[in-house]
């Protein structure tokens, strides 16, 4: 039984209250967060108030949902009215949003408890969480290593059981990559499945919110609550939301799984490749059919992404002007000087780098050579997937080319950092759903993730296959030592 289902059973039986559960999590956060730095803000009074209301709701038997009374965390890039949103940036140090993100509002409607806001790379730009303006997050499996990024705070918090689950955001792998590095489940839904209203924009054609959980079933339960049309986000598609748990437990005999050779071999560490191939063999043993496929433009995904995402970011981040909200420089001359001083004081080095790249590729004389070219390559990447999905139902790859690296190892080399996205960014470019599930550990005991990619809007099949894998292996029951999990 999944973590959420287990807790629901105890809450329903009256052997546990949401207040007691929330207090337990707040105590764990007080004990372990100073070492991990997974949370930027813990909202004790707010969380306990929500827990009280959840218990009352249950007592009155009123609208009890699978999430009623369940303590969650939210990546600090989504608005929770009443709590700060910093995006781990100095430019939003004292920013308080005036409304809830739609995803947050839907979790609160379901009776969920919000424990606080999790750390991240500044404005979700980074693969290691070392680009947080408020200090890096550590990997619960080995504090000398990074937890991945940009949703590294959420991944570390779920992994160390400092929340039951978390909401992250994924622009080029920011849910799936840290999920793989921290040994948890991370689901990026199809672009358009979940509203982005109240998610601070990074790259609008790529950003998507999704659950980070201890199990596949929990991911399905949370997606159920946050998915669906939203009049406040015209890209959140107005189509029926299926039952994401409908096929959990169904056999996967006959499911066709594509294995793209481009995701194996060069650039992928041998132990990661071997572990993922073992996982694929396991899926075959469950009755799935594997099919060799080709996604010939795979190697262009990272360069394509690092034109399109910075271009969109440079436009989105133009709103931070030191006038309407956020950091405002003290020293100033004219309006132009105020903008320049406020922005350069407020943005960290990685955000500055991406704004510069984005502005460059969109500037007169370079637009066609870089931005338009990248958009054309994006078409080819999407076509590769469309072609592959005529032959297969899901595609299986490693989530990352290696396990979590050591802190500081790549900080001085932005390109090396970008290559951590090598297996994840094409999914965002094509707008597909993707999930990472734990599938093993390397010789140092560091987690390895199995990535499954699905057809647009077919999260149901994705979850079915991920669940079949998870439930027939034991990797989801592995937890980092030293956090008293299961004690």
């Amino acid at each position, binding site marked *: 039984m999944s973590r959420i289902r287990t807790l629901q059973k105890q809450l329903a039986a009256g052997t546990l209250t949401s207040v007691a559960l929330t207090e337990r999590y707040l105590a764990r956060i007080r004990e372990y967060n100073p070492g991990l730095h997974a949370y930027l803000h813990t909202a004790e009074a707010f969380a306990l108030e929500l827990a009280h209301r959840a218990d009352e709701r249950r007592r009155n038997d009123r609208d009890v949902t699978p999430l009623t009374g369940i303590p969650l965390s939210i990546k600090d890039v989504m608005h929770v009215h009443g709590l700060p949103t910093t995006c781990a940036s100095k430019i939003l140090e004292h920013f308080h949003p005036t409304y809830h993100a739609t995803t947050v509002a839907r979790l609160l409607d379901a009776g969920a408890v919000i424990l606080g806001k999790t750390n991240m790379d500044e404005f979700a730009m980074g693969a290691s969480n070392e680009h947080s303006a408020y200090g890096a997050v550590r990997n619960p499996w080995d504090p000398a290593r990074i937890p991945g990024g940009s949703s590294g705070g959420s991944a570390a918090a779920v992994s160390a059981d400092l929340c039951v689950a978390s909401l992250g955001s994924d622009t080029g792998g920011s849910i799936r990559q840290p999920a793989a590095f921290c040994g948890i489940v991370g689901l990026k839904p199809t672009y358009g499945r979940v509203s982005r209203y109240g998610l601070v924009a990074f790259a609008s*054609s790529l950003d998507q919110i999704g659950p980070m959980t201890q199990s596949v079933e929990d991911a399905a339960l949370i997606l159920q609550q946050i998915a669906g049309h939203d009049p406040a986000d015209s890209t959140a598609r107005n189509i029926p939301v299926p039952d994401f748990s409908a096929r959990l437990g169904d056999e996967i005999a006959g499911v066709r799984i594509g294995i793209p050779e481009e995701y194996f071999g060069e650039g992928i560490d041998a132990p990661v490749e071997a572990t993922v191939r073992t996982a694929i063999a396991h899926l075959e043993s469950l009755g799935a059919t594997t099919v060799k496929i080709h996604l010939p433009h795979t190697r262009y995904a990272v360069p394509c992404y690092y034109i399109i995402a910075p271009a969109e970011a440079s436009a989105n981040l133009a709103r931070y002007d030191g006038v309407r909200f956020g950091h405002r420089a003290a020293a100033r001359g004219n309006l132009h000087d105020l903008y320049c001083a406020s922005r350069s004081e407020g943005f960290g080095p990685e955000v500055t780098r991406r704004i510069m790249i984005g502005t460059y590729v969109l500037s007169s004389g370079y637009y066609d050579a*870089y931005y338009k070219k990248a958009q054309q390559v994006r078409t*080819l990447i999407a076509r590769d997937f469309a072609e592959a999905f005529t032959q297969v139902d899901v595609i299986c790859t490693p989530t990352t080319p290696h396990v979590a690296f050591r802190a500081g190892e790549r900080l001085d080399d932005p390109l090396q950092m970008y290559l951590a996205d090598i297996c994840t960014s094409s999914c965002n470019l094509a707008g597909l759903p993707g999930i990472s599930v734990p599938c093993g550990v390397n010789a140092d005991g560091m987690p390895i993730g199995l990535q499954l990619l699905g057809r647009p809007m077919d999260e149901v099949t994705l979850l079915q296959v991920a669940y079949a894998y998870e439930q027939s292996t034991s990797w989801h029951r592995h937890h980092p030592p030293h956090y008293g999990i299961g004690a």
Partner: protein
Amino acid sequence: MATITAETLQHIAALARLGLSPAQCAHYAEECAHILAFVEQLNGVDTTGITPMDHADHLETVWREDRLAPSTQADAILEGAPEREHRFFIVPQVIA
């Protein structure tokens, strides 16, 4: 390999409204040149006649009823302003 002169970088920084020191400019010029050299491998892809993709698929015009609905209160938004007076954001003098 792409080269970015300090002059070009200054121009880009000004477009992006970023105030960078000469030392920062030199640093970012070098880093950006590396990143651009990396992304330029896209030049190896034949994209003749390929339509640029500016968004994930399935975008369509969304229609809704033109109806009054409550919006965030201006006062709450103004609360977040670093400097304000009455119901105005304050900026340095624009017209001399």
